[in-house]
């Protein structure tokens, strides 16, 4: 076979170029730590690496969501636990009501309840960032709005906002019924104008049709004296019903110290299950880290139960205290359920977090296996290539340097 000078040079250059290309390639692998850089280097490997990288970025997005879900869950749980302790305290005040007899026994408890109600409202209006924790989906609105007495209020209200009425009992112990007007001179039941009703019916209490004040028969004097409210004031029913068909209204007067106090709590958040906020924390996995809307509405009932209890203490109403305490206990079941539910959610979120971290690390390993260069192997290969390169240069320079010309004399 003829080996020509030009082709032998060209072949030498090709060999040197090929080795240099390989060296550059290996050098790039060593400097970047990667054996492939794009689809042109290995389409199937890059496809798998890209898919894994996409999944990693999704897991990172889920990690952000998990972090938020965990924060919301923990914060909601803590707040709800605080609320439970508050409601426990309220309930305990009611359960230890034996031996209460005087105002000095009721007043401190009523004062405690006022504080507990405020704390309870605060704990349920916990906010994280711009979002209220117990508002369902309506996260931007204050969920538990405290309706408070203002200076213009004269009477106490129930938790629906309606004015509270006390039952006024007659001296005989029979509650004064609707439209009960009395002629204080005869004791006859009359209409609002003083016209004796058919009967005539002699009663011992009613509204004095002359003055509009509540009056009752004084057994000692035989006179009809005014019936006084808890503050010792004369009760003048607001709506004496002159037509004689209305209800005797005896609104409960508002103590001055109650101005600014809460008479009801209104839940403004969403309640429907479909409105509860859920978001993704893993592929095909969503969580609702917030307390459920329907439960939140239940927490409002607990607060209103505490308010009703407070009012019972204010009225020194033994029977009322017991009844309100029972009602409060019934509504407090919601709180316990809510705590359990949130705790389960937080645990679930933590499990998902561990799974996500595990998946991320696994994907990272997969990508590394596909893409990363084995440095030891690459450096050995690089040295091998460098040796070959040096040998080619050395042998080439010797071959090219000599020809028959060097031996012709």
């Amino acid at each position, binding site marked *: 076979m003829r080996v020509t000078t030009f082709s032998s040079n060209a072949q030498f250059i090709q060999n040197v170029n090929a080795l240099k290309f390989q060296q550059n390639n290996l050098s790039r692998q060593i400097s970047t730590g990667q054996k492939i850089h794009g689809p042109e280097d290995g389409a199937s490997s890059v496809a798998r690496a890209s898919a894994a990288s996409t999944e990693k970025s999704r897991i990172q997005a889920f990690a952000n969501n998990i972090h938020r879900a965990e924060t919301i869950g923990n914060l909601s749980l803590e707040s709800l636990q605080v609320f439970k302790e508050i409601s426990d305290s309220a309930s305990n005040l009611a359960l230890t009501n034996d031996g209460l007899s005087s105002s000095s026994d009721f007043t401190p408890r009523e004062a405690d309840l006022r504080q507990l109600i405020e704390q309870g409202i605060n704990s349920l209006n916990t906010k994280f960032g711009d979002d209220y924790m117990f508002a369902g989906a309506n996260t931007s609105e204050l969920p538990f709005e405290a309706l408070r007495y203002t200076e213009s209020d004269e009477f106490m209200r129930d938790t629906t906002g309606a004015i509270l009425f006390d039952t006024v009992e007659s001296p005989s112990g029979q509650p004064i019924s609707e439209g009960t007007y009395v002629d204080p001179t005869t004791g006859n039941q009359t209409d609002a104008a003083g016209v004796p009703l058919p009967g005539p019916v002699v009663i011992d209490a009613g509204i004095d049709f002359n003055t509009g004040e509540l009056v009752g028969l004084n057994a000692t004097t035989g006179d009809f004296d005014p019936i006084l409210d808890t503050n010792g004031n004369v009760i003048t029913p607001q709506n004496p019903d002159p037509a004689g068909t209305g209800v005797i209204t005896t609104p409960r007067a508002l103590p001055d110290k109650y101005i600014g106090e809460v008479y009801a709590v209104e839940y403004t958040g969403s309640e429907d299950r479909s409105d509860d*906020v859920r978001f993704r924390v893993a592929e095909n996995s969503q969580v609702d880290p917030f307390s459920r809307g329907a439960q939140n509405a239940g927490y409002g009932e607990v607060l209103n139960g505490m308010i009703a209890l407070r009012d019972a203490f204010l009225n020194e109403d033994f029977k009322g205290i017991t009844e309100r305490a029972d009602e409060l206990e019934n509504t407090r079941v919601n709180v316990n359920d809510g705590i359990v539910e949130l705790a389960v959610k937080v645990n679930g979120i933590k499990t998902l977090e561990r799974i996500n971290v595990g998946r991320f690390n696994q994907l990272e390993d997969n990508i590394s296996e596909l893409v990363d260069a084995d440095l030891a192997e690459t450096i050995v290969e690089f040295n091998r290539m460098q040796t070959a390169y040096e040998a080619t240069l050395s042998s080439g320079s010797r071959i090219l340097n000599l020809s028959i010309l060097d031996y012709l004399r």
Partner: protein
Amino acid sequence: MSGLFGHLTSASSALQAHSKSVELSGKNIANINNPNYARQRVISSSVSAVASGQVSTFVDREVQNLRDVFVDKQVVEEGSFLSSFETRDNRLREILAVLGETVDRVNDPSFISDQPEDNGGIRDSLNDFLNAFENFAANPTDRANRSVVMQSAEELVSSLNRADARLDKIENSIDTEIQTEVKSFNNRMAELSDMNRQIARIEIAAGEGAAADIRNERQALLEELAEFAQVDVETVASSGGQVAVRMRTESGETVDLLRPGFSPEPLLYDTANNTFRVASSSEDLDLRAGKLAALSQVKSEDLVEIRSQLDALANTVATEVNEIYYQAFVPAGVDPAVDPAVPEFSFFAQPTPPPSVSGAPSTVDAGSIALYTGSSDPLVTDSRALDVDSLRSTNSNFAGANELALAIAGLSQQNFATLGELSLSEAIIQTSIDLGQEIESNGNQLAVQSDVQILMKERQAQVSGVSLDEEMSNLVQYQRAFQASSQVFQVVSEMLETIVNLR
């Protein structure tokens, strides 16, 4: 038997033959670095002549240009393929770069808490967009999340627009390159035609092979021509060594681009239809291989395929997001049953409203995809462009509700018929991978073809190449022969002198 004068003539012809051989060795050595040169040598033969009853022996010499016609033809043919693969490789890599699908481990987060970094590719933009909605769904009231959604949406739109614009540029540059290369091809055809004429002029007068140097240049030119397109070259009989150059049409017919005695037919390129032809034929040419064929293939197949995949992706993103996000606006006093609702809010500018509402197919593509900028309909009184403030996570009145954001983020998990039953990110990966595989496959063919080309060039060099060692040893050989022939001449001359000086 010849006489002394015959000896002198014979020695003289030998001296001329050796001198010619030395001259050709010098020429060979002078062209040792000329890749187009084929070595030449003197073929000597002994010729006897009878003059005045005496037989004289002469050394006849013929210059031979050492070429293997078959190998030369193969070099031309294989050169077309090599050029095809090289050109396509370069262009496919350019297109791949547009997609930005690279593996960058430096910026790739190694830990879940690392901040992900965007390498500017379409896949990353798409992932960022969907992930931004995922985080937006978890915290819809957070302004930072809303900003991230808007930024990622703008980046997605911009990356698709950018890719489309770059593909436009590549297509334009291919058009320009084809036009330039067609011009170069035609110039070379004109040069070839000139060489044909020169070879014919010389060889008709001086015999076949007399125009060896021009033949060498013509062979180089044919090899260059083959790099543009696959041409069939045939030496035309009785034409003084001229060659005809032909190409084939799509139906397989042959078309002469160059015929002895005629001007070459210029190759024409129709940019709009991406076809080649010559004026004398009504059929389009099938270039089969070569740079022009590769450029044409990249334009008509690879670019079209990539564009179609990118357009499908952009269209699917816009349509699917708008299907979720679109909210019709019904002006006061308008009965939606009578008058169609006009759009109030969309996410992407097109299609507005989405096909499911309008009934019209979406026309959005990678070049036209844009964010919604508000309605131009005069009935829409409170139309607002999409921005951080107007971005909605829900259609309800609850600020924390997220059904829209959740549904849009959920698109990442869906497969779409418009994308060949792939998900959005799978589609863009598939596009890159298809292209990568094409590059790999083309690269493998390129490597094989390079080896074939090297082999053919080696075979060509084995026949035609100059070896310095060979030429030097030939030179010594010729020198010695010349010296010996001179010695013969001197001896015969002395013999004649002896005879002449006899007394």
